[in-house]
Each structure stands twice: as structure tokens, then as C-alpha cells.
């Protein structure tokens, strides 16, 4: 048996039809797209993911990538899959029509990326990195560069990479050493070594376009002296045909824990020709413009991993016969009952299910706000949408990728020993999911972004985009009888979040280490409350649909919601206690004490 996955189309369509429909009409009106089209696109993408990408997920992990004479070969089936994917136009989903894309809503793109990540996270990185490169170029580069590179990237004929990390420079990009020396013709020569470059070299596309952070000779020290450059593997002629090879190479590829079908490359730039993107010394600004999108998409990877973990584990739990239900046997004709009868198994399955479904709604809503911010004419509404996205980005990136790890681990637990051995492909899910909390800004850094940047930004205006919305919702619905199992719990957790927010803001002013210490717990609390809000809204919607619910879809939503509100949301209580007790127990812990247990 192998990994089990069918795209959760019903759930996605529920979100499109019932959950984000209150605001998504704005988007449809502004483009040539209708709700029906979205569903057709999802159906077609699902086929591609289930029939082409899923079957090469396990084999790709086992075979991995190989580097020989500077050339990286991808595992069997990846070339064909990439051809299928790009020839059918999927690289261009949200790219501007001007460059050959379809300019479709961002929230739709999130659904598509989720399916891709579920069915083959390694594969998804190739087009994923290209999408990041497209966004960075579109938002920062000159018209000439856009016209030369974007059509080829949007079609997938060329692919893209992001080169930030160096051996001495991970989180702290101010430590960048790669040097870019200006040339008379306006180009630059780049010299230096980048590490951990996803898809830095491979055999899927005809050219690879590297976006590289580097310093110019007289640049200011640290983060203020970083610029962004475009450095193609093969230098294109002005008509887009391929010219000479650039002087750069892939020195080696990492042996690593997971996503083995995607190469993680050491890239050497040896006086390679590049061109400046955006303004000199404003490389970080250019990166930040695309960072929201990239971080949301890593969150989507976490969600995708949780979904395939859930479906595989559920399938197994129904088939695996062990032990008897404590409440009388359920399958008397069999030697034992399916393990789905055991309370612990049910609890864990529901934990994954309610976290993924809740996150999916939170992400769809956030994706929609990205779309709204793009088209909204009203200044206040636009700002509100932007604020929501900036606030939710670290929360989604971090929490969803943590859920990806927890869910895949729980899936192994549900499979027992059969999850730990390789045959079923479940341990692969754990290994693949594990990178997502690390790259694109570690989850610790996301939490600091939330507490250190987003919280104080514009004197708390970003926080308001969330707190006001929920407050209004609570005021409107606190006497909604249908929601009697939901509102009190939502209100309680919301109040806790408010209280903790005030505490961190006050303590942080006195001692930044206090705020930093609480950051990860605070982010988790924020995520739990946000998802509690989503589940309450699901329930509200579902109660109104019960009269036409042949399959029990809406009934199930309500029941799932009750599980979330009573079993998972209460964790906000323990997180609050921990935060309110302050950070001294570790910040002031004597450094000498750490190694007393083993020091000789």
C-alpha cells in the first residue's frame, strides 16, 4: 500500500461557495472569471496531481537527485511531469496576462499549491521557486528585464531560484559576502558561494534564472548594503534565445532528511554576469515585497502535508484490524475491530482534520485579502486587507508548517510500526514536512516578526484588522442560539489573546527579551484563536444549510467544529499561563548551568 490522496475538492468548493463568497464576488466582477471556472480549474488540477504527481512521490524520494559533471539529474518521471505541468499552463496561474499568464485569483493559487504539495512536495518546489522569482522580478525589475525573462518563466521554459543563504549567513542576511562589482556596460560581475539553493541546478528547464543577494564594493555595512541581482545560468540574447553559458556552477548537492527529489545546491559564482534588480542597496526591500507570498506558500506546504497524512492515516485506520472496541465489538465477522474504534486514534484523526480544515479556511480568507488589496479602490478597505495579510503571514507560515509536522508524525503513530518502515511512504511525509518550519525564515523568526514588527507596526493598526473583525462578529452573534456551543469558547479564547497581547506589549517595552521569549507561544495562541473564529463561522454557515444536506457534509462541519472548540482551542489557556509567567526562567538562566550535567 502507498500514500493515499484525493484532492479535497469538496472542502475547497465549500470554501469558495459558502465561506469566502461574501467578498470574493468583488474579485470575479473585476476579472473575467466566474465561480464555475474556478471549480473546473480545481477539478483539472486535481487530476494532474493525483494521476501524475502522486505516483512519482515515493519513487522520487527513494531515487533522489544526482550530480554528475556539474549536471543534476532529477528522478524518473520528473521530466515528463514537469513537461505536462508547464505545457498545460500551470506555471502561469497568477502571472500577469501581459507575460502569458492567466492572472487568476491568489486564493485559487493557494488551493492549487496545496494539492501540489500534498501529492508531491519535492516536485512543487521547482515551479514554486519559479513563482517566487517571477514575483520578485515583476515587482522590482526594469521593463527590459521583465519583457526578456517573464514570458519564459511564466511558461516554465525557464525556471527560477532564490539565492540568499551563504555558509556564514543564514537568518542574518547582513552577513552576506557575495560580491557584485559594477562593469562599464551597466552589468555586474558576481563572485561568491551560496548554499542550500533549492533547484539551483537541474534538468527540467532549458535555463535557470538565479536571483542573488550580494554586496557592491562600497556598500554600507550589514543589511542596508545588500542588493538583488538577476544572474542567468545561460545568458539570453535580447530576443530571448539562449546565448553563452554564464560562469557559475553547482558544486555539490546536499544529502538531506527529506524533499529528496528536489536538489539543494551549493552554487559557485565566479565573476558571473548579472544585472541589478530594483535599487542599489535596497535588495532587502525587494525581497520583502515577495516574501509575504513566498511565506504564505510555505504555509500551504504544511497544510498540504497535513492533508495527505490525514487521508493516508484515515484509510489505514479503517482497514487495520487490532483489538476490540471497549464498548463491545464492532465487527463480529472479523478477528478484530478496525483501529478506528479506539478513542486515541479517533482523537488524533480529528485533531489533524480540524486543524487542516480550519487552516484551509484561514488561508483562503487571507489569500482573498491579497486579491482584494490588489483591486480595492477604497483606501481604507485596501489598507485593511493589506494589514490582515501582513499580520497573518507569519502566523500562517509558522503554525501551518508546525501542523504539517505534527500531523505527519501522528500519521506515523496511527500506522504504528508500519508507519516507521518505508513501505507505506508515511515516514517520508514526516521527513518532507520537516523542512517547512525551517526555510523561508525559520518559525522562530516568524514569531519575532509577529511580535517585534507586526504588533507595534502603525501603533497596533495591523492587530486591529483582526481584533476588530472578531469583536464585531462576537457582538453580532453572541445571542445566536445555534452557536451556543461555539460563542462562549470563542469569546474566552479571544479575551485571553487580548490580555496576553497587552501583557507582551507592556513587558516588551521594558525588556525586548521578554517579548521575544513569548513570541512562539503567542503566535500559536493567535493561530488557535484565528482558527476558532473560522470554525465558528463554518458552524454558522452550516446551520443554515442543514435542510439540504444529503451527505451530512454540513452536519459534519458542525460536529468537527465542536471537537476543535472543546479539544484544541483550550490550549490557549495553558499558553497564556506560560506567557504570563514571564521569560526569566530561561532568559536569566545561568549559561554555566546548561552543561553541568555532563561537564567533567
Amino acid at each position: 500500500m502507498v500514500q493515499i490522496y484525493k484532492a479535497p475538492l469538496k472542502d475547497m468548493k465549500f470554501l469558495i461557495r459558502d465561506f469566502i463568497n461574501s467578498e470574493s464576488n468583488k474579485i470575479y466582477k473585476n476579472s473575467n472569471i466566474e465561480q464555475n471556472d474556478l471549480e473546473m480549474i480545481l477539478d483539472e488540477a486535481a487530476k494532474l496531481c493525483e494521476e501524475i504527481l502522486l505516483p512519482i512521490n515515493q519513487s522520487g524520494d527513494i531515487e533522489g537527485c544526482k550530480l554528475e559533471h556539474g549536471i543534476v539529474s532529477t528522478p524518473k518521471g520528473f521530466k515528463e511531469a514537469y513537461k505536462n505541468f508547464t505545457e498545460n499552463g500551470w506555471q502561469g496561474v497568477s502571472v500577469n496576462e501581459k507575460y502569458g499568464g492567466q492572472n487568476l485569483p491568489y486564493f485559487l493559487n493557494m488551493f492549487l499549491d496545496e494539492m501540489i504539495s500534498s501529492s508531491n512536495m519535492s516536485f512543487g518546489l521547482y515551479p514554486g521557486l519559479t513563482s517566487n522569482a517571477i514575483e520578485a522580478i515583476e515587482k522590482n525589475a526594469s521593463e527590459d528585464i521583465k519583457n526578456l525573462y517573464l514570458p519564459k518563466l511564466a511558461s516554465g521554459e525557464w525556471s527560477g531560484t532564490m539565492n540568499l543563504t551563504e555558509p556564514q549567513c543564514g537568518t542574518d542576511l547582513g552577513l552576506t559576502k557575495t560580491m557584485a562589482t559594477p562593469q562599464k556596460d551597466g552589468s555586474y560581475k558576481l563572485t561568491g558561494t551560496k548554499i542550500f539553493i533549492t533547484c539551483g541546478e537541474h534538468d527540467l528547464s532549458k535555463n535557470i534564472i538565479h536571483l542573488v543577494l550580494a554586496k557592491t564594493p562600497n556598500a554600507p555595512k550589514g543589511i542596508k548594503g545588500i542588493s538583488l541581482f538577476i544572474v542567468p545560468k545561460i545568458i539570453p540574447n535580447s530576443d530571448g534565445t539562449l546565448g553563452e553559458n554564464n560562469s557559475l556552477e553547482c558544486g555539490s548537492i546536499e544529502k538531506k532528511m527529506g524533499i529528496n527529489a528536489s536538489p539543494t545546491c551549493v552554487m559557485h559564482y565566479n565573476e558571473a554576469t548579472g544585472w541589478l534588480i530594483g535599487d542599489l542597496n535596497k535588495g532587502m526591500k525587494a525581497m520583502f515585497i515577495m516574501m509575504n507570498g513566498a511565506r504564505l506558500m510555505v504555509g500551504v506546504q504544511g497544510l498540504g502535508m497535513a492533508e495527505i497524512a490525514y487521508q493516508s492515516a484515515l484509510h489505514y485506520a479503517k482497514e487495520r484490524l487490532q483489538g476490540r472496541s471497549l464498548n463491545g465489538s464492532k465487527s463480529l465477522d472479523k478477528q478484530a475491530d478496525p483501529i478506528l474504534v479506539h478513542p486515541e486514534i479517533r482523537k488524533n484523526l480529528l485533531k489533524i482534520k480540524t486543524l487542516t480544515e480550519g487552516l484551509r479556511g484561514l488561508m483562503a480568507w487571507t489569500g482573498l485579502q491579497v486579491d482584494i488589496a490588489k483591486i480595492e479602490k477604497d483606501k481604507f478597505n485596501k489598507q485593511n486587507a493589506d494589514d490582515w495579510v501582513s499580520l497573518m503571514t507569519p502566523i500562517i507560515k509558522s503554525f501551518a508548517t508546525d501542523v504539517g509536522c505534527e500531523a505527519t508524525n501522528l500519521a506515523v503513530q496511527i500506522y504504528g510500526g508500519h508507519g516507521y518502515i518505508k513501505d507505506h511512504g508515511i515516514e517520508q511525509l514526516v521527513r518532507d514536512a520537516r523542512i517547512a518550519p525551517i526555510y523561508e525564515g525559520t518559525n522562530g523568526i516568524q514569531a519575532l516578526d509577529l511580535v517585534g514588527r507586526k504588533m507595534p507596526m502603525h501603533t497596533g493598526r495591523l492587530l486591529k484588522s483582526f481584533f476588530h473583525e472578531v469583536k464585531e462578529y462576537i457582538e453580532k452573534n453572541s445571542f445566536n442560539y445555534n452557536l451556543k456551543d461555539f460563542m462562549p469558547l470563542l469569546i474566552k479564547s479571544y479575551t485571553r489573546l487580548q490580555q496576553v497581547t497587552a501583557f507582551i506589549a507592556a513587558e516588551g517595552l521594558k525588556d525586548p527579551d521578554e517579548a521575544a521569549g513569548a513570541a512562539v507561544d503567542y503566535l500559536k495562541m493567535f493561530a488557535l484563536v484565528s482558527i476558532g473564529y473560522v470554525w465558528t463561522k463554518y458552524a454558522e454557515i452550516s446551520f443554515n444549510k442543514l435542510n439540504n444536506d444529503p451527505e451530512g457534509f454540513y452536519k459534519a462541519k458542525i460536529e468537527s467544529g465542536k471537537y476543535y472548540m472543546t479539544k484544541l482551542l483550550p490550549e490557549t489557556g495553558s499558553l497564556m499561563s506560560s506567557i504570563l509567567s514571564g521569560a526569566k526562567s530561561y532568559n536569566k538562566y545561568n549559561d554555566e548551568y546548561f552543561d553541568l550535567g555532563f561537564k567533567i
Partner: protein
Amino acid sequence: MMKILVAVKRVIDYNVQIRVKSDGSGVETENVKMSMNPPDENAVEEALRIKESGKAEEVIVLSIGNEKSQETIRTGLAMGADKGIFVKANDNCEPLSIAKIMKKIIEKEKPQIVLMGKQAIDDDCNQTGQMLSALVEWPQATFASKLEIKDSTLFVTREIDEGLEKIEINLPAVITCDLRLNEPRYASLPNIMKAKKKPIETLSAEDLEIDTSPRIKLIKVEEPSKRKKGIMVNNVSELVQKLKHEAKVI
């Protein structure tokens, strides 16, 4: 240059586990995933390949049924067909009514090739193509697994019980497609978006003056009885005994 007419039917998706309605009046289709009948996809694919080889200039997809059948036409258009014709009719049209409607459409559109699936996976009738061929008095090639066109002759390989049969027929002709004919393409994203702009002509069975009232009375639909549990036999002679006396198959 010739036109190709492809008939496509909206059926319950092949992945869906069929549920019988509790009153036995049919199978549940409400809230159930519906798709294009699989061999009809082969028919669309083949039509597109003929067009791409330069031997035809237009591919028309036709669907007959309730309003939702237009979604199936859209699927065909998204695969690359040029235009759609939707004939509104009651849900359970029998093969003869469909063939009669198709005859009217053929008279109107004058295609040289009609491609359709060999059968629909919902009722498994496997009749419409044959009936249509008789009505329009064109040659037929059923269960096609390979097609080649040379001028106005069609070389067809047919999947039959004995193996493969190769025949030659003249155009115009009706061809029903087997799943082995080709591998249907995925609809590309640009084509899905383009499909929105392609025309779908809407007609109705009444417009065409075809009486679609059923000639067969449906009495009851029920689930097949559950399979009995298998048994292990100890040796070949026991197996032979059982096949002879219990199963009575040899």
C-alpha cells in the same frame, strides 16, 4: 476540409461509489461528482488529433441531457474543441432517442466523421452509435482502438472478443471509441479559460421534433447482492470438483 462531431455524455464520475436511491427509483446523482463518460474523452482526444494533423478543421462537441450537460461540453471545449451544441432533453433519454437527435444534428452540421464512446459507463447500453449508423445509413466502426485516415477512407482497428480486427470503411462514418484508442489529454489552463469564450449553441429535443419519451419501463433499481465469502481449496482436484458440482461452470 472536414468537420468532426463528437458526442459526449455527462455521467457519474468513475471514481464515485454508486449509491442506489432509497426508493429504488434510480441511483443518487445529487451532490455526486459528475464527469465526461471516459470513452467519450477518447473520442474528443481522437478528434483533436485528427484536427491537429491537418485533416479536419472543426471539432464540435455535442451533449444531450439536462442543463448541467453544458459543463461536459465545456470540458470538451477546454480540451480544445471549437464549438459546442447542447440539446436539452429529459435525463433518461434512451439510445434510440439520442441517435434520432444526433441524426438531426448531422443533417444540420454535415460532419464527415462522428466520434463517440463505445458505451456510457452509467447504463452500459452500447447501442447509440450502431443505431445512429443505421439511421443515417453511414458505415460504422465500433470499439475502435486505432484510426488512420487516408483521403476518404478510414482504416480502423477494432477491439473484438477474438482479438483485433482491421477494417476499411468509407467516409462519412460513425466511429465508437474504445479506451485503448489513445490517452486523453488534460485540459490546459489557457484552454480552460479560452473555453469560456467558445460558443455553445442551445437546442431542445422539442425544437428538433424528437419524441424522447422512454420505451422501456424502469421497475426498480437495487444494489447487486453482496459477494459470498471465498473459500480456500486444498488441491486441484477439489477445485475441479467444486467447479463441476457447485459452481456448475465446467
